């Protein structure tokens, strides 16, 4: 047993400590801040690798440390952390992607005046996210979860002088808070039914058989409430609206939070408490899982469609993130936990890669984000172009060499095997085409075609391209452990040994999806090859394009329903307050005043006369005393001495 297994809390603690350290640096110590953040991340990565190694030794490894936080009455509130393949894989992904993004940020944020603060927040975020991953208690997870939310709020609103950034930060915070309310209620309910918040506790945890037995029929409710939190954090429909707006933050933040890690927390949460979802499954189907699937499907398709009609390079990626998260949810819903997590890990790498690539493009074009104003960057930014292409292949789901392809394939398999209906499967296949379509569209707009208003574009510095290359290589290497021929990661996550089987490579489904991807890319190539200022789709279907371009008017829908409703309620309350309650209050106060007038008359004539006499006497006495109060220290000292003398006399007289 390695020492890190028992001290796994060190992994989140290190970035948190470094974050505090950086916060105390003066804002001119830029190199120190960046260095500290990167060193903290490297240490966390090292610890994560150390923690990863023991999990390889035995399939289904799980180490749990729990301790009592405090006790009220006879109820002990216990917290703890857990190390299992799920956590270990997430740790590696978060720290590695995080490290790349930290390094990238050094270049991207080079000109910013709040450089040190940025790195403090990044480190803080990293620590909080690692805390989510290793938590063995729903409460600890919730605490870290909220810290992640806080970090996200701080980072989205990092450019506080921009009103749009501040609004986006607020929106993200409030929207996720709606989900977190559900999460919190779910937690309370879980504690009520099972009496513990620990996941694993030597057979007594909430996720272990005895705990699940106690939960019994309320599992659906608990699972759905907890799923609310996941919906909020992972940007699932109907709470997805904050995620595209969150692109107001600096691009490394988008890469770190809104692609690779934080949004993955929702998926991770569902995977972590999966036993609650699948409790009492008939044929692998429970009501809660049904909800998960429906939400996932709706989210995935809707986001892909919206992505087709966006012109902001980061916004397209944001919607693709939403759709990929929906895909993961579907995977979890149909029972493919390992597949979902694998996609989550792969997605972490290639989406960070894509976002950083987009960041590199934006940086090279002096903060231009509109893809209509880009083009022909293929030769100007070769490294960015190559790595971006790899990321795009991953996202589009091209199998064989790209991890994203294999994991997406796996998810499609799982949906196909769902016993209830084939509908999710078909919809996901449609999603594959759409993904290929919008990604190719973006590629063509940005990297091919004529140069548009990109007169002084330049390739980014080495410190920014190196992370891109590392992430690209990682996403390709990851493909090796993902092939169906040697499904090592799948086996690792499921806690069973991996077997080599080349036969698994040849499957009809694989060719189907390959065909679909090729169709999507080809279609896009045909459509957008000669695209001019107006989008071809907009020309063909202006109504539909506007509908999609305006994000299906969901924000507006919320504006006119929920927000309008609360406004009406507020007005109503205001009216009630002003006229009804105020009237009551005024009535009472009038009564009080009348009584006061009465008692004043009584006071003045009956009582005060006596009191005045007494006070006059007291005042005369006070003047008498005050005359002795000369303010002279020595007079006081003399008085003390005389007092001492009197005491002496008294003593002598008594003795």
């Amino acid at each position, binding site marked *: 047993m390695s020492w890190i297994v028992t001290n796994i809390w060190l992994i989140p603690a290190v970035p948190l400590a470094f974050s505090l350290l950086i916060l105390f640096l003066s804002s001119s110590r830029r190199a120190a801040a960046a260095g500290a953040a990167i060193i903290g991340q490297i240490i966390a990565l090292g610890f994560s690798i150390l923690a990863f190694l023991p999990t390889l030794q035995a399939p289904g490894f799980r180490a749990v440390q729990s301790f009592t936080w405090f006790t009220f009455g006879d109820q002990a509130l216990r917290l703890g952390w857990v190390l299992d393949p799920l956590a270990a894989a997430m740790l590696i992904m978060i720290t590695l992607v995080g490290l790349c993004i930290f390094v990238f940020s050094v270049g991207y944020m080079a000109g910013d005046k709040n450089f040190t603060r940025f790195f403090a927040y990044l480190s803080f975020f990293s620590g909080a996210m690692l805390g989510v991953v290793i938590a063995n208690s729903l409460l600890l997870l919730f605490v870290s979860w909220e810290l992640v939310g806080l970090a996200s709020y701080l980072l989205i609103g990092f450019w506080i002088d921009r009103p749009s950034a501040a609004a986006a930060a607020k929106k993200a915070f409030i929207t996720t808070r709606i989900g977190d309310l559900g999460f919190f209620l779910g937690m309370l309910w879980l504690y009520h039914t099972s009496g513990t918040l620990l996941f694993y506790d030597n057979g007594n945890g909430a996720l272990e058989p005895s705990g699940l037995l106690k939960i019994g029929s309320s599992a659906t409710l608990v699972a759905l409430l907890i799923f609310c939190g996941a919906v909020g954090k992972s940007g699932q429909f109907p709470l997805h609206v904050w995620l595209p707006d969150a692109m107001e933050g600096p691009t490394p933040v988008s890469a770190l939070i809104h692609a690779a890690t934080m949004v993955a927390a929702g998926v991770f949460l569902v995977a972590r408490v999966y036993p609650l979802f699948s409790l009492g499954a008939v044929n692998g189907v429970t009501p809660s899982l049904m909800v998960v699937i429906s939400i996932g499907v709706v989210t995935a398709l809707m986001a892909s469609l919206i992505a087709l009609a966006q012109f902001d390079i980061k916004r397209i990626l944001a919607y693709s993130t939403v759709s990929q998260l929906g895909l993961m949810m579907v995977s979890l819903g149909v029972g493919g936990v390992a597949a979902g997590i694998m996609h989550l890990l792969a997605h972490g790498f290639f989406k960070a890669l894509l976002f950083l690539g987009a960041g590199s493009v934006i940086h090279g074009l002096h903060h231009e984000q509109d893809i209509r104003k880009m083009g022909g960057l293929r030769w100007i930014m070769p490294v960015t172009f190559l790595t971006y292409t790899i990321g795009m292949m991953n996202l589009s789901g091209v199998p064989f060499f790209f991890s994203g392809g294999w994991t997406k394939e796996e998810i499609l398999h799982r949906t196909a095997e769902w016993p209830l209906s084939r509908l999710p499967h078909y919809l996901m296949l449609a999603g594959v085409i759409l993904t290929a379509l919008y990604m190719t569209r973006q590629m063509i707009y940005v990297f091919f075609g004529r140069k548009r208003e990109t007169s002084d574009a330049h390739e980014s510095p080495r410190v920014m391209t190196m992370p891109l290359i590392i992430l690209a290589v990682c996403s390709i290497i990851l493909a090796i452990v993902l092939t169906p021929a040697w499904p090592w990661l799948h086996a690792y996550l499921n806690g069973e040994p991996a077997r080599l089987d080349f036969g698994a490579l040849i499957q009809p489904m694989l060719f189907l999806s390959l065909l679909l991807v090729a169709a999507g890319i080809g279609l896009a190539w045909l459509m957008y090859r000669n695209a001019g200022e107006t989008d071809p789709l907009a020309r063909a279907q202006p109504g539909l394009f506007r509908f999609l371009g305006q994000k299906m008017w969901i924000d507006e829908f919320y504006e006119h329903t929920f927000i309008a409703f609360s406004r009406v309620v507020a007005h109503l309350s205001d009216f009630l307050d002003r006229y009804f309650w105020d009237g009551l209050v005024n009535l009472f106060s009038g009564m009080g005043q009348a009584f006061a007038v009465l008692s004043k008359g009584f006071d003045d004539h009956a009582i005060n006369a006596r009191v005045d006499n007494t006070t006059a006497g007291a005042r005369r006495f006070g003047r008498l005393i005050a005359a002795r109060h000369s303010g002279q220290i*020595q007079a006081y000292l*003399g008085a003390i*001495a*005389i007092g*001492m*003398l009197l005491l*002496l*006399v008294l*003593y*002598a007289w008594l003795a």
Partner: protein
Amino acid sequence: MNATAFIVIAIITIAGALAAATLPKLIHAALSLVIVFVGIAAYFFLLGAEFVGLVQVFVYVGAVAVLILFTILLTRRDIVSERGINWGGVIVALAVFGGLLWIILNTTSLAVLAPQFEPLTVKQIGESLMTDYVWPLQCVGLVLTVALIGALILVMEEKIER
């Protein structure tokens, strides 16, 4: 107990004290105060409390007296005209002395001769300070620190904005 030593020290000490209390010039009074301190330290030696005597010299002569002299220098422009003999103070002081004397002379339970004793070594004092008296010691350290900082803040130049 050495009677000669006792009487000589008593004369010097009380003369010094009278000088300290009555001399018109502040500096002379402060220097007479030093004589009193040294005299009391001599009494401590006579009573077998060498360590306290040394501490007395160290603290009072080396530190407090110098402090008083510095303060006199820093406030030298203020020459306070004395108001002549303050008979009230003299009478109170004499009365207190008389009362104390009367009490002392009338108390019969006091030891006549000092008992034999082992001289107190520095080591014993140190051990007491570090065991039974460790908390008072810490408190005194704290008090001294606070006094130091407080005195510094009190005498710091006030910034006059012009």
